[in-house]
C-alpha cells in the first residue's frame, strides 16, 4: 500500500434483500487528490459512498482510512473521523437557519450553553469562502437552491474533513457558482484535503479531477488518470459497450428537417411576473422543439410556469392555435392541451409510494373516471401502451415508482403527460440526474414526439442539449428574452455569449 493513500476500500460486497449492489468493489483515494467516481445510475456509486460513511453496513470487504482499519456505524462517526459528505439531494433542515444547518453537530459553546454569536460568525466566515453573503439567521428554505447547496458544502468543509465527498454537487448550480465551487475544491486540495467528486457532467471531471474510478453493475471496472483517458473512452467504460458517436454529436438528438415544422401553435408576448420574468416573448410551432437557454435565475422555469398558469402573470398575452389563451389555472392549461414535466421530479412530479400505473394516470384521472369511478381496464390498457412505447423498465404497472431508476421515473412522467394527448409539452430539465444511457433514450424520445407533430418547449441547463436538440433557441437573461436563434445560428459560442452578456437594452 502506497504511503500517499488516504482511503483504501477493497473487495466490498453489499446486498439489499439478496440483490447485490456491490460485488468486490474497490476504491482508493490519495491524499490531496480530487478523485472522480462515475458510473451509470445503479452502478453502485451511492451504495459505495453510503458504506464508507456508515449509512449502510457492508457484508464483506475491508476499508482503511488514514492508515488505520476503518469501521463506522453511523454518518456521525464518519464525520468525526474526518469524512464529510454532501449528498445529491440537498440534505438540510428547511425550517432551520443557515447557522444551525452549518453548525449542527459541532456547536460552539460558552459556559456549557450554545454561543450563537460565535456560531453566526463561523457560518458567515465559511460562506464568505464562496463569496456568498446571506443572513445566516434566516431559515434555509427561504434561499435559492444554489445557496442551499453552498450551505451544504460549507457545512461539510467546516468539519475540518480529511476527505470530502461530493455527490453531484453541481446539479443545482449555475456556471458562475460552479466556478466558485471549483475554486473551493482546488483550495481544499492545496490544503491537503482529498475530494471525491461524483458527477454526470464529463466536462466538470476534466476541469477539476486528477483521477477517475469507473463503476458498473456494482463492480469497479477501471481506475485511470483523468488526463490519460478520453471522454469517449470514459463513457464506453461506464456503459460497458462501445458507443458510436452519432455524426459527432454529444447527445442523441439528430438534425431535423426545418420544412417539417408547422405553423405557429403557441406564442407569448411580453410576459411578466415579478422580478423573475420581466419581459419574455417566444413562440413554438407545431412539431418544433423550442429551447430555452439561460443561466440559473434567468427566468426560464418561471416563464414556463406562467404559460402553464402555475403562477399568475402580471402582464403580457398568449395565443394558442391562433386564438387568445388565458388560462386561470393548470386545469385550464391541461384542458387546452398543455403538459408540464417539472424540473424537480421528487418534489413536484412523482408520488413515490404509488405504482407506475397510478403515477402515470394522475393527470388523466378526471378524464378516465366515469361518474367518479376509475375505468380500470381502460387505465391498464393505456399504461401498458406507454410502458411499451417508452420502453420503461419495470416489473409491471403495479411496481412502486420509487423503485425505478431516475431515467425510468422520468419516462413515467412523460407517459403521464403524453396520455393526456397534449399539443404542447413543456419539459423542464428532462434529463437532469439521469445516467448517460437513459439520457440518450429520453432525447431520442423527445425528437420522435416532435417528429409526430408535438410542439415541445425544452428547458435545459446542458448547453449541448439545447443547441443540438432545439430547432430554435430563445436565450433568457435576467427575466428578458435577449436573443432568438435558429438551429444554424445557435452555436455553443453564440448561445453562451447571449446567456452571459446578451444585451439587455436591445431586448424586445
Amino acid at each position, binding site marked *: 500500500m502506497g504511503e500517499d493513500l488516504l482511503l483504501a476500500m477493497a473487495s466490498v460486497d453489499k446486498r439489499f434483500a439478496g440483490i447485490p449492489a456491490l460485488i468486490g468493489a474497490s476504491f482508493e483515494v490519495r491524499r490531496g487528490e480530487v478523485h472522480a467516481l462515475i458510473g451509470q445510475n445503479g452502478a453502485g456509486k451511492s451504495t459505495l459512498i453510503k458504506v464508507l460513511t456508515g449509512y449502510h453496513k457492508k457484508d464483506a470487504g475491508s476499508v482503511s482510512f488514514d492508515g488505520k482499519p476503518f469501521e463506522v456505524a453511523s*454518518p456521525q462517526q464518519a464525520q468525526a473521523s474526518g469524512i464529510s459528505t454532501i449528498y445529491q439531494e440537498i440534505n438540510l433542515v*428547511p425550517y432551520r437557519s443557515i447557522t444551525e444547518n452549518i453548525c*449542527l453537530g459541532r456547536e460552539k459553546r460558552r459556559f456549557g450553553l450554545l454561543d450563537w454569536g460565535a456560531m453566526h460568525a463561523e457560518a458567515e466566515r465559511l460562506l464568505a469562502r464562496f463569496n456568498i453573503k446571506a443572513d445566516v439567521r434566516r431559515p434555509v428554505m*427561504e434561499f435559492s437552491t444554489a445557496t442551499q447547496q453552498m450551505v451544504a458544502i460549507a457545512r461539510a468543509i467546516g468539519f475540518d474533513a480529511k476527505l470530502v465527498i461530493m455527490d453531484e454537487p453541481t446539479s443545482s448550480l449555475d456556471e458562475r457558482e460552479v466556478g466558485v465551487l471549483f475554486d473551493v475544491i482546488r483550495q481544499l486540495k492545496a490544503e491537503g484535503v482529498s475530494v471525491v467528486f461524483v458527477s454526470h457532467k464529463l466536462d466538470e471531471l476534466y476541469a477539476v479531477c486528477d483521477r477517475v474510478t469507473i463503476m458498473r453493475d456494482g463492480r469497479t471496472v477501471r481506475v485511470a488518470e483523468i488526463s490519460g483517458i478520453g471522454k469517449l473512452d470514459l463513457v464506453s467504460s461506464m456503459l460497458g459497450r462501445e458507443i458510436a458517436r452519432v455524426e459527432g454529436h454529444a447527445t442523441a438528438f439528430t438534425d431535423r428537417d426545418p420544412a417539417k415544422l408547422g405553423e405557429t401553435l403557441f406564442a407569448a408576448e411580453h410576459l411578466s411576473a415579478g422580478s423573475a420574468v420581466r419581459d419574455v416573448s417566444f413562440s413554438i410551432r407545431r412539431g418544433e422543439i423550442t429551447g430555452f437557454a439561460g443561466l440559473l435565475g434567468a427566468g426560464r422555469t418561471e416563464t414556463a410556469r406562467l404559460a402553464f398558469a402555475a403562477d399568475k402573470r402580471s402582464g403580457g398575452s398568449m395565443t394558442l392555435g391562433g386564438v387568445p389563451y388565458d388560462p386561470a389555472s393548470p386545469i385550464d392549461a391541461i384542458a387546452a392541451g398543455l403538459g408540464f414535466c417539472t424540473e424537480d421530479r421528487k418534489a413536484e412530479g412523482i408520488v413515490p409510494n404509488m405504482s407506475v400505473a397510478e403515477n402515470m394516470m394522475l393527470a388523466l384521472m378526471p378524464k378516465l373516471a366515469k361518474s367518479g369511478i376509475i375505468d380500470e381496464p381502460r387505465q391498464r390498457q393505456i399504461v401498458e401502451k406507454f410502458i411499451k412505447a417508452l420502453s420503461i423498465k419495470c416489473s409491471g404497472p403495479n411496481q412502486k415508482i420509487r423503485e425505478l431508476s431516475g431515467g425510468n421515473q422520468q419516462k413515467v412522467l412523460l407517459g403521464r403527460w403524453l396520455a393526456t394527448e397534449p399539443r404542447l409539452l413543456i419539459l423542464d430539465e428532462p434529463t437532469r440526474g439521469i445516467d448517460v444511457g437513459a439520457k440518450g433514450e429520453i432525447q431520442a424520445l423527445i425528437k420522435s414526439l416532435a417528429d409526430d407533430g408535438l410542439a415541445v418547449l425544452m428547458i435545459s441547463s446542458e448547453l449541448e442539449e439545447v443547441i443540438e436538440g432545439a430547432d430554435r433557441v430563445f436565450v433568457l437573461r435576467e427575466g428578458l428574452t435577449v436573443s432568438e436563434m435558429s438551429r444554424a445560428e445557435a452555436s455553443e459560442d453564440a448561445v453562451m455569449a447571449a446567456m452571459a452578456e446578451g444585451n439587455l437594452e436591445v431586448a424586445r
Partner: protein
Amino acid sequence: MTRIRLARMVGSYGVVIALALLILFGYLRYENFLGLFNIMSVLRYNSMFALVALGMCFVIMTGGIDLSVGTVAALGSVAAAYASPYGPIAGLAAGVGIGLVVGAINALMITRMHIMPFIATLASMLAASGTALLLANNRSVPVSYQSGFTELGQGNLIGLPIPAIIAAIAFILGWLVLNYTATGRGVLAVGGSEESAKLMGLPADRIKTLAYVASGGLAGLAGVILAAQFGAGQPIEGVGWELFAIASVVVGGTLLTGGVGSVGATLAGVLLLGILFTVLNFENGLGWISLSAYWQSVIRGAFLLVVVILQARLIAGETTRT
C-alpha cells in the same frame, strides 16, 4: 418587506397578543379579575397543564405526538399519593419516576420498534390508565397531610404558589435546552427533516428518546402536583389532558409536523386556554347567561379553531410574499 416583517411578528407573537387582549377584556368586564386571589388560583391550577404542555411541545417539535400524558399524570398522582407519607421528596420521586418509565417505554417503542408515535403512545395511554386504576383499586388514594407533601400543590413560597414556581423553573430550563443546547437544536432538526438530520450525523434516536422521556417525566410531575393540590391520587383524572396540551402547543405556533416551535409561545398557549376558562367562569358568575360545562367546551373548541385558522393564514400570506 415591512409587511412581511409585520406578518412574521404577528405570526410569532399572535398568541401573546391574543392573551393580552383576553386579559384586558377580563379586566374591563369583571371585578376582581386581576385580583391577587384570582391570579394565584389561575397560576396554581394551570401549572399542571403547563408542565404537560411543555413535554408535549418537545415531542411535537420532533415530529411526534404523546397521547399518554393525561393517563400518565393520573398514574403519577396515584404513585405520589402512596409515597406521600414519606414526604414531598418521596412523592416527587414516585410520581416523576413512574412518568419517566412510561416515557422510556414510549421512546423504546418508537425508536427501536419503529411504531408510529400515535399508536405507541395510544397503547401506553391505555396501559397507564389501567395500571393507575389497578394500583388505586378503582378509588381515589388519599394523601398524607402530615408529611408536608401537600405543600407541593397547596403551599406558597415567597408569596407564589409552589406549583407555579415548579412550572416556571421547568419552562426556563426547557427554554434554555431548546435554544442553547445542541440537543435542543437537534430536536428541531429531527422534526424538520429526520433524514437530513441523520445524514448530518445527529443522533436522531437519542434526541427523540430524550423528548419522550422528558414528556413522561413532566406528565408524572403534573400528577404529583395534582395529588398534592386535591389531596388524593386520582386514577381517573387526566382525561383529555393530552388534547389540552396539544391545543396549547399548536396555539403557540408550534407546527404539528415538527421542526418549528417555541417554549415561550407554548406557555402563552396554556395561559390563553386556561384564562379563557376562567373568563367563562366569571361570565357565569355575572349571572347574565348560564353556560354549562358542555357549552364551555364548545366555546373553547371554537376559540381554538379561530386562533389556528388565523395563524395558518398569516403563515400562508408570509410564504407567498417571500
